[in-house]
């Protein structure tokens, strides 16, 4: 049998970026992602494969050694590992514990938006209070942006990570660019 030519990954909007004086938007690098579901009785067991205790307070997140866990619901976390190759090992480790682990690395894609106008640009489509009091760094939540669902995760005062299903990412980009025209 002839050698099989390896398929090439083509993540959406690879390398896309935009910046003006008040805002910078860029497509996040590929990462591995797992939708993790577990009941409260299973939490303790999960500490080992993850290397840290899952955040249990609504809207909070935890990051350690490139692995982040975002609280999305009372039994739901989004795990993001910056290393796209890390997925199989992590899935394997989770397989060993009682939980639901589903690979969604390709379902989602992410956009990083930062700059002094980031909050305003996001508030052009997101109805949430994004002030630092209500949505501090580390806070994460599923919410809406215009007509699509996103997961918004505040990395720092002026920087947000937005998770979105891949087919909605074009809409997200278009909207963010539209809203950025007069940012600042």
């Amino acid at each position, binding site marked *: *049998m*002839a050698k*099989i*030519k*390896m*398929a*090439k*990954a*083509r*993540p959406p909007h690879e390398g896309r970026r935009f910046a003006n004086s008040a805002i910078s938007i860029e497509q996040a690098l*590929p990462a591995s992602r797992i*939708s993790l*579901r577990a009941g409260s009785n299973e939490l303790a067991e999960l500490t080992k494969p993850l290397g840290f205790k899952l955040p249990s307070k609504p809207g909070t997140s935890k990051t350690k050694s490139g692995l982040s866990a975002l609280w999305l619901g009372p*039994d739901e976390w989004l795990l993001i590992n910056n290393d796209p190759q890390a997925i199989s090992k992590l899935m394997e480790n989770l397989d060993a514990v009682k939980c*639901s*682990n*589903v*690979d*969604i*690395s*390709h*379902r*989602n894609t992410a956009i990083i938006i930062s700059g002094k106008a980031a909050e*305003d640009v996001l*508030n*052009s*489509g*997101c*109805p*949430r*209070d994004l*002030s630092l009091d*209500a949505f501090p760094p580390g806070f994460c939540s599923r919410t809406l942006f*215009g*007509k*699509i669902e996103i997961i918004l995760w505040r990395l720092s005062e002026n920087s947000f990570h937005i998770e979105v*299903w*891949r*087919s*909605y990412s*074009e*809409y997200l980009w*278009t*909207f963010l660019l*539209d*809203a950025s*025209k*007069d940012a600042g």
Partner: protein
Amino acid sequence: MSAQNRIKGHGQLSLAKTINFTFDGTTYQGLEGDTLASALLANGVHLAGRSFKYHRPRGILSAGPEEPNALVNIARDSTRSQPNIRATVQELYDGLTAESQNRWPSLAFDFSAINDGLAPFFPAGFYYKTFKWPPKAWDKLYEPIIRAAAGLGKSPAEADPDRYANRYAHCDVLIAGGGIAGLTAALAAAKAGKKIILCDENPNFGGAILYDNALEIDGLSATEWVEKAVAELAALENVRLLTRTTAFGYYAQNFVALAERVTEHMAEPDPALPRERLWQVRAKEVILATGAIERHLVFADNDRPGIMLASAAQKYLNQYGVAIGANVGVFTACDSAWAAAFDLKKAGVNIAAIVDLRDNPPLELQEKAQTCGIRILRGYTVTKTSGRLRVQSISVQPINGGTVEQIRVDALLNSAGWTPSVHLFSQSRGKLKWHQDRDLFLPDIYVQDCISIGACNGTFDENELIAEAQAAGNATRKKAKAIRIENQSSWAGNAIGAAPGAGPSDNVKAFVDFQNDVTAKDIRLAVREGMHSIEHVKRFTTTGMATDQGKLSNMHGLAIAAEQLGKNLPDVGLTTFRAPYTPVTFSTIANHARGPLFDPTRKTPMHQWAVDKGAVFEDVGPWKRAWYFPKAGEDMHAAVNRECVAVRKKAGIFDATTLGKIEITGPDAAEFLNRLYTNPWTKLGVGRCRYGIMCREDGFIYDDGVIGRITDDRFHVTTTTGGAPRVMNHMEDYLQTEFTDLDVHLTSTSEQWAVIAVQGPLAREIIEPLVEGIDLSHEAMPHMSVREGKICGVPTRLFRMSFTGEMGFEINVPADYGESVWQAVYAQGEPRGLTPYGTEAMHVLRAEKGYIIVGQDTDGTVTPHDAGLSWAIGKAKPDFVGKRGMRRPDLVAEGRRQLVGLRTKNPKVVLEEGAQIVATPGQTVPPAIPPAIPMKMIGFVTSSYWSEALGHSIALALVEDGHSLEGDTLYVPMEDRTIEVEVSGCVFYDLDGGRLNGKN
């Protein structure tokens, strides 16, 4: 033209900053900071519009958003044209081009003004009483004439290239209105550390005190004080100041909508800026400081150009340096008009007389008037005015009767007192209370976290107002620094309803609602005709329904109706105030959601490949799906035939990515499926798949799809493309609220996987060289199985399944690899005839096999039995969602529509989808209504195609008791002919299914 009415030394504009503008083709000069109205008045132009019904010439009445008359069309270019813009709020910019409306051929000579002469024939509601004969004439004759006469401006004719934006905002305190009350409250709140938003509809903060030259606040003039206050606020981080921003809607839970006009005042707007921005503000508290609006007096011919609200004249003078006339009369019931007269007098304008309805206006006003040498007529009324395009004289008479005197004027100020602007309060669902002693409706019962302060709360005294504003803004209740007020002018005095001389016995045109031409007479007529509720009066006369929304007319209308009914004013009711406070541009509300952002467009990873191959796409929900792939010279029919043949003879490749996918995990996953689908799942082996049907409790088909068992506790579920979100929601609902005993989790994986269907006799040999770790042989991987392995070096869930009737595979790969794997498969297969096919060919292929499409062959009223899918119901299962529902009497009765196949007697005839079916050919098609003897329809065609493989047309149909009609002849009556069809089974091609296994 030069501005002859601009008075040096008056107003706040710089005479040096001149700009040009055009009105009705004439170029004029204005100043930076002018409104269109102030600039027109500076040039001596009063005549600005025509009324709606009588086409009476109308002048500029006000200096604010309540303007009913001076509405113009402003167009920057042919794509940027907007009708019905109030000249009184439109800021002037260099090159502004405005045109008057609702007149032909010109504003000064309007042909339709003939209506005015015919006014006796057009009282309120005249159109209900006539135009009834002949019956057909209404929409053919009368209505077009009425329509052409109605309407004000013209709709834009071209699409709008401008941008509109949105911003959601949250704050502790939203203050609507930046006059003295709003500014004071804002200062107090801001200093208390609250996060505040202060908005005002004007270009500058300050409100009514900006044109009060006498007022002193803390030793500063009003303008100085405003400047200082604004500077103080602007320096604070916790304050957002929004000018040119109207709070127009107050919704539930302190959600307030603001419209910001960002560029409408600019000569050359920066294209980066949105034209307008919608602010959607959620505030912990709302402070309403919306002020008050001066009412006009209702007297005979009170609508001539040159007749103006007193406060407007004062504002034009003190803010814009414009005198509205040289010889001005004043007609009032309110103190504030006297102050306007004094200011005009001081600026050198002759005041012909102050006519006050009251017998005893305040003495100090009278004294001051005498000092200035102004004639006072106390207890007088104006009974008449003259002048066609500009008022020329007024006739005055003592209220108790007596000699009528004619006084020449070139403008007339008038004031009936002030109406608190309770619109937003009322929109918040607060209840108003009538204060008989003050003739005012004021906020009484609050239902939201808000407070009214200042003039909108009836607080006209500046000292009281300051205290009220400070208390509202400062929750900590710390004693605020006192603010010293000197030389405030009085707003006391009110007249509501028709002035003497326009009473029930006077046959005069005294306008209540200017724009809609509603007179006091009309309101009385409405009451005589039985309209006893103010809502009826309003609808019958259209008072308060013009573009000014009754800001000037509501109180008068109410008072006149009350008088006619002999009732107290509050007993007649008050019309509800509805959003918006002032009209708001459609696109401001739609904002970003235009063009590509109107709705998201979902595309699969292989979309671009299909584009490159020339695919035509169809919309399926939010998705774009390749419909067919026409080659040069091919129409849809030819392309689809070719694609179908390729699949049947060789192989086709199809993008099935859009199908919904749900990963169901957990020890109870199989049991969960048992309860949600009609089929049994417990015994489905790992590595096998099954077609499943989902119902709701009502027993009708809700969705379907193939479900594969990946491991004992992990299933890969597919749904229809459009059904994916609602199926997920349906499952979550049962899982969370009903089947809480089950240990199961659901994850949407619709977009995790790109799905490449390869179907046809050559499918296996095409993909085999690319696959690793999976034995594709029929024995190892039979029809309806699933395996995990690798394709092109990447992980795959490979399904052996078919929606075409051919042997086929559906290759699921992580979406980033979709395009690359697709290309590899295509490269592999293309030399052997692998052909891309679209959704249309897919539909034909599946119909040839009798596979249903939920939503096309079922419509929400079809049970699995009806669809011929009884085999898919797990009869041994004690329960599943829909089991009880499908046993209801009508669902098991005879005569249900059941899915069958249809063969046309003439094989070349392809039925039309949706065509109805009858049992007997003798029925004739009824002509249009009436009289109609309806034909008894027993079913309809759900799917219909030309089958190239079979050489004849095929169709599926839902037909009453269809399952027992096989072989019968039925009829499809079309407009021009009746088509004979024979009922068949649903499967047309490869009846024994051998091809699924690569046989036949």
